[in-house]
């Protein structure tokens, strides 16, 4: 099986290049994922760098651009991939080395969404309880693993990464706006006003297309806009 992988070591290379790799078909087992193939290729060429951890789509470490589409290598079946399999780092972020990108920008966007409960009311004696219906509103929001596939697939993020929060952070914004225990709705919405932070989203929906967890940041962004309209009435 043929691969073409983006290589760049800033200490040695003037500029990035694509290197071809061949994996012996005899080593490919049924049901193998792309990450398994990458690990075999790394055994052939140990200079090849990529992030990975859990290997089962939970940690979100191995997000990369696979044949032009962002996804997690560990949950991408090998057999569906067109050859040569072109692997590039997530687009729009600085490359540290090969498939490893610098996620500082992504994390600062996440931080800007203030992804924690804000509630200054006196603590109750037990937990802050939710009804099953209130808890249900968080489904499809809390599952995000911060793999950065969505934000780095978003053209609005490519053009204004420093000002637009990006789909991943906005999904988290809505996750806390939608939480019955959170009391900071006003501040959160104020923080999202202006032409950039939220409103650079033009419902392109690349985020929905690539999310390996099947989440829908575009819908979350729509809910935020709806809440803003309701507030302004």
């Amino acid at each position, binding site marked *: 099986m043929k691969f073409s992988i983006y290589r760049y070591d800033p200490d040695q290379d003037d500029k990035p290049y694509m290197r071809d790799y061949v994996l012996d078909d005899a080593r490919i087992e049924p049901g193998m994922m792309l990450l398994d193939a990458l690990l075999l290729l790394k055994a052939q060429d140990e200079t090849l760098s990529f992030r990975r951890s859990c290997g089962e789509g939970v940690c979100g470490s191995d997000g990369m651009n696979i044949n032009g589409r962002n996804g997690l290598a560990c949950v991408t079946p090998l057999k569906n991939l067109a050859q040569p399999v072109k692997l590039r780092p997530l687009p729009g972020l600085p490359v540290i080395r090969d498939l490893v990108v610098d996620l500082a920008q992504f994390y600062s966007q996440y931080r800007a969404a203030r992804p924690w409960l804000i509630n200054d009311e006196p603590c109750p004696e037990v937990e802050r309880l939710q009804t099953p219906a209130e808890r249900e509103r968080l489904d499809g929001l809390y599952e995000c693993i911060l793999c950065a596939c969505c934000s780095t697939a978003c*053209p609005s993020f490519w*053009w204004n990464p420093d000002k637009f929060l990006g789909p991943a952070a906005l999904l988290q914004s809505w996750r806390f706006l939608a939480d019955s225990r959170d009391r900071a709705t006003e501040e959160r919405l104020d923080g999202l006003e*202006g*032409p*950039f932070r939220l409103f*650079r989203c033009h419902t392109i929906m690349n985020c929905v297309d690539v999310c390996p967890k099947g989440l829908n940041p575009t819908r979350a962004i729509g809910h935020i806009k709806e809440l803003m*309209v309701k507030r302004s009435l």
Partner: protein
Amino acid sequence: MTRAAQGLRAWLLQRFTALYLAAFLVYAVARLLLTPPAGYDQWLAWMGQPLTGVALTLFVAALALHAWVGIRDVLIDYVHAVWLRLSLMAVVALLLLGSGLWVTRALLLAAMRAAQVGA
């Protein structure tokens, strides 16, 4: 302009003008297909009706506002040098405003003409 006007209000303006543009276009196309004006006199009579004049003026205003929000979005997305973005936005704003006023003038003239013909 407040921050709210730059974000939520611009977005709402785009949605609402879109609704009006769509509704008016359906009406205008249907009207032109069903009873096409045969000549200048009939065009004048149609344009001279106060309701048509107001609806068309609103259409032009909605079109200009809709175009403004859309082009502004494109400029914010792609043009990052602030001086260049502001200059381009000023040019677009002037063009849209000028075109809008020009169409409004034409419509007013038509209304006055129709009133004269009617009298």
